[in-house]
């Protein structure tokens, strides 16, 4: 039982550490920047897709 409880405590400590790191301001800024850049990259790729679909329309 001790082994199991020690393992569970280590696991919860790990989760707690990850949670504390994730809610730190720097990590939040990193995540916000990455998410926003991903959204903007997706928009630019969608814009490329829109431009690329024009020749197919013009061919007919």
């Amino acid at each position, binding site marked *: 039982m001790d082994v199991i409880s020690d393992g569970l405590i280590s696991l919860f400590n790990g989760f707690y550490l990850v949670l504390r790191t994730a809610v730190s301001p720097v990590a939040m800024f990193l995540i916000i920047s990455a998410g926003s850049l991903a959204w903007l990259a997706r928009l630019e*790729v969608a814009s490329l897709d829109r431009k690329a679909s024009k020749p197919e329309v013009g061919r007919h």
Partner: protein
Amino acid sequence: MRPLNPTTQVRPRQLARPQTRPESGQAPASPAVKRLASRRARRHRNEGLRGFSVRASVILRYVCYWMFIVTAGSITHYCFKSVPEASSGGVWLMASCAFQLLVAVAGTLFAAHRRDEILEQLRAYVFGYTVIPGLGVALFMWVARNMVSSGSDDLFIRTAVAALPWIYFIPVLVPSIIFLRLVAGFRTIDRVGLDDEEILQIYTRNDGLQR
């Protein structure tokens, strides 16, 4: 366009294409997967391999943007670590960049007709007005502090060491506010503030401007 086969009502190319059989253990493709596959097929048909490389370069460019912001923030944080007035300067830099990026994302949602312009302005504000000037001030500050600590009594260097932590906040904080105002203005920038009479006077050239 090829004519339809009168017996099967499908085109010859569709007849030759192997059909997926759900009963062979393979799950039927979901609409999202079908949409993705058709987009990839159309891209390949129109642009070939170059289409994939162009899109990969766009994504790689955005990954590089993120890495540049993180690297600049880390270097700035290192340079300002021992300055009491701006000990968390790198965090401020990253906060400013995150704020501007969030504003740009909101702008692409609320002013969708100006998306390309928002992206161009974002690049100018984040890299031209915030990250590179902030990094430059931080590096200059680091050099100046090292010179002072090594015994230099130059008046300019001493003034710079006292003033630079405060000057640093100009490129880091002010562009965020200006960018917010810029993006907020995109929503109403095309609106005309004239009433009908004034518009008609200008449209019919009865505005007196021709005399």
